[in-house]
């Protein structure tokens, strides 16, 4: 049995777009039955909120959410970002708070009504109407709102058309260079990605109170910059501002890939949202750049394995235990194609290297030595403790366990609260035939914040050591 567990494979601010230590499992057939007839496992376009889970294979394809409740799938997350984006365009960034409050109100109303009265035929339109009415009824913002009222009442705003431009604009607003990077990330995750404070804190390896404070400050900054136009920046400013947006999408994907809160480890919808937003960037000629495509490829390649990462009870599976037949071959195929499309021009971004690593992991057998080489490359382009940890683990899997390096990583402040570090050490020592030492690390990992399935996984691994 392969004691290694999914480990962080990301670089940069947050852990794991994980590299799953693949062990030596090369058995599983790679093609899913009936894959040609199935729906893709995720929304291909912002509108494709309905058909998830209709694939004929019977397996829950793609994002690992079960099939009931399809009608509303992704609805809140998609709608929240889009409605907020549209309201912010109309009201101006100074009124982001009001826009968010309105969206909140719409969601609460939906929660109080839909479970009993059924989901309306046009749920997004319903949400927009409630949100708009809330804005119009707002006393606090009365004068502003009255001035904007004609805009809000126009049919094209109410229309249920894709609001990609508004969302791009909101993303770029949240990623404004005058905000600290971490605040940019927090703002985007909150406003466009629909994450709560706790989820953001987890994604950023920081405390919820810190996130809340950052959000408050960022919004205060927005209020003082009320005159600023919300729009996608001009071409000359785009380059510098795009990277912040990409970092944020990367984090959003990670937040879903290894969700730390709640009972469902694989929060496929977050990953799908990150992919959706990245597609928005790829669909716009101004932002359709090689590194954007590389990020999309990276997310597709990792996303292809999402459904296989947990069993029916939602528990984490080791790669050796996973059914490779559940890997989404369509996503892999698309990821490979997009990766090919990203390899144009001369610039090789960190996303290119990480996509190459992801590509190694969807192969039949994992070439650890090659992955170590790619991590070396990544560490020169974009050094981070998490990437260093992944390199160390990949090296161990390649037969080159380096305890000194792992101990050095334990001194890294950024990894102090990171449950995957002691978990990795536990896995490596278990693998090296030192169960007592491994048990200590698993116990330490259990003292860190992590999701319920991850906790069960750690307990399961700990039991193996005893």
């Amino acid at each position: 049995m392969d004691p290694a567990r999914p480990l962080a494979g990301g670089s940069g601010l947050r852990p794991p777009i994980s590299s799953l230590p693949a062990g030596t499992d090369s058995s599983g057939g790679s093609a899913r039955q009936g894959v040609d007839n199935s729906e893709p496992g995720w929304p291909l376009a912002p509108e494709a909120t309905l058909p998830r889970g209709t694939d004929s294979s019977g397996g829950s394809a793609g994002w690992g959410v079960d099939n009931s409740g399809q009608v509303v799938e992704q609805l809140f997350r998609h709608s929240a970002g889009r409605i907020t984006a549209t309201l912010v365009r109309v009201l101006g960034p100074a009124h982001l708070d009001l826009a968010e409050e309105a969206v909140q109100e719409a969601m609460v109303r939906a929660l109080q009504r839909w479970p009993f009265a059924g989901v309306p035929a046009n749920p997004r339109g319903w949400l927009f109407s409630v949100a708009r009415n809330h804005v119009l009824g707002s006393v606090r913002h009365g004068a502003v709102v009255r001035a904007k009222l004609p805009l809000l009442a126009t049919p094209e705003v109410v229309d249920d058309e894709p609001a990609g431009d508004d969302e791009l604009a909101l993303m770029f607003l949240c990623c404004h260079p005058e905000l600290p990077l971490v605040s940019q990330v927090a703002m985007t995750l909150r406003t466009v990605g629909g994450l709560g404070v706790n989820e953001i804190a987890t994604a950023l390896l920081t405390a919820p109170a810190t996130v809340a404070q950052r959000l408050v400050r960022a919004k205060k900054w927005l209020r003082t910059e009320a005159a600023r136009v919300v729009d996608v920046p001009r071409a000359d400013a785009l380059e510098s501002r795009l990277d912040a947006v990409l970092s944020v999408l990367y984090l959003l994907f990670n937040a879903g890939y290894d969700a730390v809160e709640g009972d469902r480890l694989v929060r496929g919808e977050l990953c799908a949202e990150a992919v959706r937003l990245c597609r928005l960037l790829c669909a716009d000629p101004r932002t359709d750049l090689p590194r954007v495509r590389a990020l999309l490829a990276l997310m597709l390649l990792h996303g292809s394995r999402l459904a296989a990462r947990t069993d029916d009870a939602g528990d984490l599976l080791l790669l050796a235990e996973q059914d490779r037949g559940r890997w989404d071959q369509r996503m892999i195929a698309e990821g490979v194609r997009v990766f090919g499309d990203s390899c144009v021009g001369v610039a090789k971004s960190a996303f290119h290297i990480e996509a190459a690593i992801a590509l190694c992991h969807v192969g039949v057998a994992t070439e650890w030595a090659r992955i170590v080489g790619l991590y070396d490359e990544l560490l020169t382009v974009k050094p981070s403790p998490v990437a260093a940890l992944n390199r160390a683990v990949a090296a161990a899997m390649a037969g080159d366990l380096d305890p000194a390096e792992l101990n050095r990583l334990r001194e890294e402040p950024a990894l102090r609260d990171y449950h995957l570090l002691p978990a990795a050490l536990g896995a490596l020592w278990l693998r090296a035939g030192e169960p007592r030492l491994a048990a200590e690390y698993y116990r330490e990992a259990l003292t860190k914040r992590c999701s319920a399935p991850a906790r069960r996984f750690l307990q399961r691994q700990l039991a193996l050591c005893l």
Partner: protein
Amino acid sequence: MAGYVGFLRGTEDAQTHLSPAEAQRTLERYIEWSASLAAAGNPVGGGGLSRRGRVVRGLDATDGPFVEGTEILGGFLTIEATDLDEAEKIFSSHPHLDFGSIEVRKIGAQGCEP
């Protein structure tokens, strides 16, 4: 089998702090609860209720809400069960219990049963 109704109560702000992601999960859980019960042959009925209403007493009417201060009656669900114990058991798995209470009553087939 008899019909039972569950009144879903909660404070008005119980769900106002949910992020879209959390609200999404909550909505899915609510709908899944009904769907899985329906799949087991017990179709769930119900309806939403407006936040405000009126109480009619004699010739006067007063504005609701009708229970103590901050609590609101958000909606109701109807199910089939053999007795109150079973109905309680069924409702005890409802995700609404994360936010408030559910009052379970038998729908009297012959007027007001005890």
